[in-house]
């Protein structure tokens, strides 16, 4: 029952759904990890909102070019066929629906598809970045997250309690315990850890899970 996917393993699982030739934006922080697990034979093209399409991996330490960074302000490298563009063109790609997939982190995801991932409330200085654009930008907006908070509270909820990033925008959630689609305002279970019963998963989820006749096993990859 204490078995769960690590962040790395969640990122691996999310990467398996990215098709060859997909245009993908990975949110800053944890989601950036997804790029490391592209299945062999597939070539996704990564977009970063600060104006690069088709960047590659991180450079070796000491070889950073600080004019060649991603949205998380980490140094990246170039691949053949890269393009540079300014911020308005970059968000035209986002807002105009040209990305195939955006993968973001979350504080909370509601069964309505609402996402809260930018503010934990009125304390401190708020910062939003490109999150509110990205949730409206891609054909498919997915979230990767631990299934529950550090305190064990559900992150998949009936209605978000934290300030929203977007309304009805998330279509799939990859968690440490399950893969869940959001369809018609409901959480629909697609995969779960085989060691976990549906009841146990439901107990850790803040809204009702729709359980189809077939639920696949969530694979725990060796990484």
């Amino acid at each position: 029952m204490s078995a769960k996917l690590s962040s790395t393993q969640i990122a691996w699982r999310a990467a398996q759904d990215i098709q060859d030739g997909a245009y993908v934006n990975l949110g800053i922080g944890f989601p950036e990890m997804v790029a490391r697990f592209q299945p062999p034979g597939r070539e996704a093209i990564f977009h970063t909102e600060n104006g690069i399409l088709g960047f590659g991996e991180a450079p070796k330490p000491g070889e950073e070019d600080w004019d060649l960074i991603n949205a998380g302000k980490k140094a990246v490298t170039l691949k053949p066929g890269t393009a540079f563009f300014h911020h308005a063109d970059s968000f035209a790609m986002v807002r105009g629906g040209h990305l195939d997939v955006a993968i973001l982190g979350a504080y909370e995801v509601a069964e309505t598809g609402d996402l809260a991932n930018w503010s934990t409330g009125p304390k401190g200085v708020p910062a939003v970045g490109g999150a509110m654009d990205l949730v409206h930008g891609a054909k498919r907006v997915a979230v990767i997250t631990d299934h529950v908070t550090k305190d064990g509270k559900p992150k998949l909820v009936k209605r978000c309690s934290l300030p929203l990033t977007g309304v009805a925008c998330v279509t799939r959630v990859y968690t440490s315990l399950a893969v869940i689609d959001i369809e018609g305002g409901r959480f629909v279970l697609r995969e779960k850890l085989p060691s976990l019963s549906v009841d146990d998963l439901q107990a850790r989820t803040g809204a009702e899970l729709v359980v189809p006749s077939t639920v696949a096993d969530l694979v725990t990859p060796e990484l």
Partner: protein
Amino acid sequence: MDKTLPSLAEAVAGIADGAVVMIGGFGGSGAPIELIHALIDRFLATGSPRNLTVVNNNAGNGHVGLAALIEQGMVAKLVCSFPRSADPRVFTEKCLAGEIELELVPQGTLAERIRAGGAGIPAFYTPTSYGTDLAKGKPVEEFDGRPYVRELWLKADVALIKAYKGDRLGNLVFNKAARNFNPLMATAATTTIAQVSEIVEPGAIDPESVVTPGIFVQGVVEVANPAQEEELNRADAVYPERAA
């Protein structure tokens, strides 16, 4: 990922009856003549596509390119800013006969509506056309004491564009003022097909100089020596060639 297409015929195969088709170019510069002619060939062979809505700055010149497409009766509606040219008779006659619908849009508004379509902006305000016949029926609002007209985005099923070089990822550069509407239309269509004079390897186009990043392009077809509308017209060309 390889977006190159083996032939013009394959490039235009997916365009459906009733489609909204953006066609790049300003007059003859940047006009994808060969893609248009391939579309005519398909129509003559199969009867499709027909009943098209075409978005272009102009309305064709002579009897080639867009004018030939209109002459075949394939275009039900034209969205453009300037349906005049050295020889606009094909369009003019059909328009005056009521055989083709015209939506006249100021040129800058046309460009901005297409950009908005590509950028996910459903509407915007512009000073252009305020107080004129072309603003009739459109919402007007004041900002900073000046009146502005609200215009809606423009999107398409397909964009047929002409570029100079392209790679298999769809990155494009254009030739001089043949750029015009082509990069905008690439962003505003579900499927963008670019004819290019030369297909090059990824990396051959300097990433600083890419004008249309590949994300906006679904197909690239090589047309090594594209025709120029002005030269065809000076030679009194007609498409398809007519038996003597």
